[in-house]
């Protein structure tokens, strides 16, 4: 199946990041069209399109919008550009290549929910992307897409671009709002949900970059057009971030439901160095590992969930036969330990403990009992943490223990990593 790009179809155009080029490619017609509609119609349209959030949880976007309480203003739309899930880099790509597409999506979403001040929360590490958005916002403002009474339609909208400063947790929507309010990026209790009490205690919608980037296309082509792409419960396309042991890592936008095999073998050019596939991980660092036997699963929220993992934020990390699965899990566990905000006990202490245990496996001092101890710790974190970050810190390592317990045992019996390459010197 060839790629069926929606978001990235014009990405080959030179200087697409410039307003004039974006407009030549049909940019901002979606926003203009939206302004001719009633906000409620737009909400209904997005509901009918079947668009689900691309940030990780896959919640239907239109439904999220319709949870806002009637008559409570101001209300805010916050675009989540804090993409920090290891193994994902699609939002960065979408912003870099076509910042106006993101802005247009934000404008449409804001108009639909009745918001006059929107925010983009971009992770601190994305400095070039921050600059791209900053330039695009200036251009859009000058062209009259932003500001008071935009395009003479009596609608006021402005966007504040807000730069984070290094904290994975801020990708979690309530932590993002706390951070945007200037505090430490710690997640908040739900309920109340952001739709009821979000930013500054006001009704707030948080949408991912890729989610909003779909909006201009839905408005331009209609809900039915969008719904026809992909699978019945997973309309549209997704941008998958391929990394690891493939010949052509990078971003690939494919129709939902496309088999994983096609993504890895055709678009990614297959496993590198003619090696065999050992495992892969969809979704990003949080998600459970899958095996070659799952290659024919479709790239779709529900299908991947059925296979025992999650589509998450659209990562696709490929691991060949030489991969040390223990070390792969160790990196992610150390990541979660590093990024734990420290608010709740299970995540703060549990990830610290797991990280110590994984180091012990790599260091060759682990005992067999440590494997089950890891599972026990995971049991006491998963479902007990304050926010999904804690829960997710256990999913990949536990799935790796499930499928690759042998490798842990080898680390014990061989007193170290059996995959360790002697190649370090050769690099220099």
């Amino acid at each position: 199946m060839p790629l069926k790009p929606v978001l990235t179809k014009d990405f080959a155009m030179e200087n697409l990041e410039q307003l004039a080029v974006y407009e030549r490619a049909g940019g901002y017609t979606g926003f203009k069209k939206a302004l001719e509609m009633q906000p409620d119609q737009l909400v209904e349209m997005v509901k009918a399109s079947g668009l689900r959030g691309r940030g990780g949880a896959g919640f239907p976007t239109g439904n999220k919008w319709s949870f806002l309480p009637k008559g409570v203003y101001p209300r805010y739309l916050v675009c989540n550009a804090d993409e920090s899930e290891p193994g994902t880099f699609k939002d960065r790509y979408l912003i870099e290549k076509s910042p106006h597409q993101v802005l247009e999506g934000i404008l449409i979403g804001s108009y639909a929910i009745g918001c006059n001040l929107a925010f983009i929360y971009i992770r601190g590490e994305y400095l070039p992307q921050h600059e791209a958005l900053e330039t695009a916002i200036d251009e859009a403002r000058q062209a009259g897409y932003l500001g008071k009474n935009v395009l003479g339609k009596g609608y006021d909208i402005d966007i504040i671009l807000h730069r984070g400063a290094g904290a994975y947790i801020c990708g979690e929507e309530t932590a993002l709002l706390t951070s945007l309010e200037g505090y430490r990026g710690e997640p908040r209790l739900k309920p109340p949900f952001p739709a009821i009490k979000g930013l500054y205690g006001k009704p707030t919608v948080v949408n991912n970059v890729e989610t909003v980037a779909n909006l201009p296309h839905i408005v331009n082509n209609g809900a039915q057009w969008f719904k026809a792409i992909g699978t019945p419960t997973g309309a549209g396309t997704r941008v998958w971030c391929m990394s690891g042991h493939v010949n052509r890592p990078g971003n690939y936008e494919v129709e939902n439901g496309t088999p994983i095999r096609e993504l890895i073998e055709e678009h990614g050019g297959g496993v590198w160095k003619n090696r065999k596939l050992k495992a892969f991980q969809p979704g990003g660092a949080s998600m459970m590992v899958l095996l070659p036997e799952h290659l024919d699963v479709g790239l779709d929220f529900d299908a991947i969930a059925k296979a025992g993992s999650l589509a998450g934020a659209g990562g696709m990390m490929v691991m060949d036969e030489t991969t040390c699965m223990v070390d792969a899990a160790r990196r992610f566990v150390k990541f979660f330990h590093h990024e734990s905000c420290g608010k709740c006990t299970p995540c703060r202490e549990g990830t610290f403990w797991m990280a110590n245990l994984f180091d012990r496996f790599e260091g060759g001092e682990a005992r067999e009992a440590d494997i089950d101890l890891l599972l026990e710790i995971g049991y006491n974190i998963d479902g007990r943490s304050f926010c999904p970050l804690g829960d997710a810190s256990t999913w990949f390592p536990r799935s790796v223990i499930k499928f690759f317990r042998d490798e842990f045992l080898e680390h014990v019996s061989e007193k170290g990593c059996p995959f360790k390459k002697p190649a370090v010197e050769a690099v220099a």
Partner: protein
Amino acid sequence: MPLARATVQRIQELAARYPSKQSAIIPALWAAQDEQGYVTDTAMQEIAQHLGLPASLIEATASFYSMFLSKPEGRHDMVICVNAPCMLRGADDMVTYLERQLRVRDGATTADGAITWHSTIECLGACGGAPMMQVDHRFEENLTPERIDAIIERLRKEPAIHRAPGKKADAAAPSAAPASMQVAPPRVTEPAAGPPEPVKRKAAPRRKRSET
């Protein structure tokens, strides 16, 4: 050292821009760090004053985010990712190579004050171009020893790059690292593995990137 007038002005603009002045804390910390190279205690107190908030709140926020520095660094900042996607494509070897070339350990500054390097477990969002690093917050992907050499050579010559996004008018070059920072024992070790250093807190730098 007090903040430059232009930085203070920027902080005041920021405070007026958001529906709540507290939202200006992170942008204000950026402004201070962009001017002075790191976030000083004085800067936090000044920010507190300009935003009408207790200083403890500013430190609480500043210390939470890994990109705010609590001590001065070299003219250039190199951060190399060692998370799993990069690990799969040889990041560990690049770290070893980088350490050998720079002749200072992870988290330290080269003797000439040109470069401070860190390895990080925090994914920087360029797994498709792994192994990768960020140099002064710009992406350098598909690293090879040759590319690393070229980057180091360039950085040794270049003056400090002002890192502020957008409004760059109030730039001032960060000062070079003081001599005490220039830890230079040439040490080449296998990164990662082995039991970690016990966690030690207080007076520990706010930045925790050096943890691998």
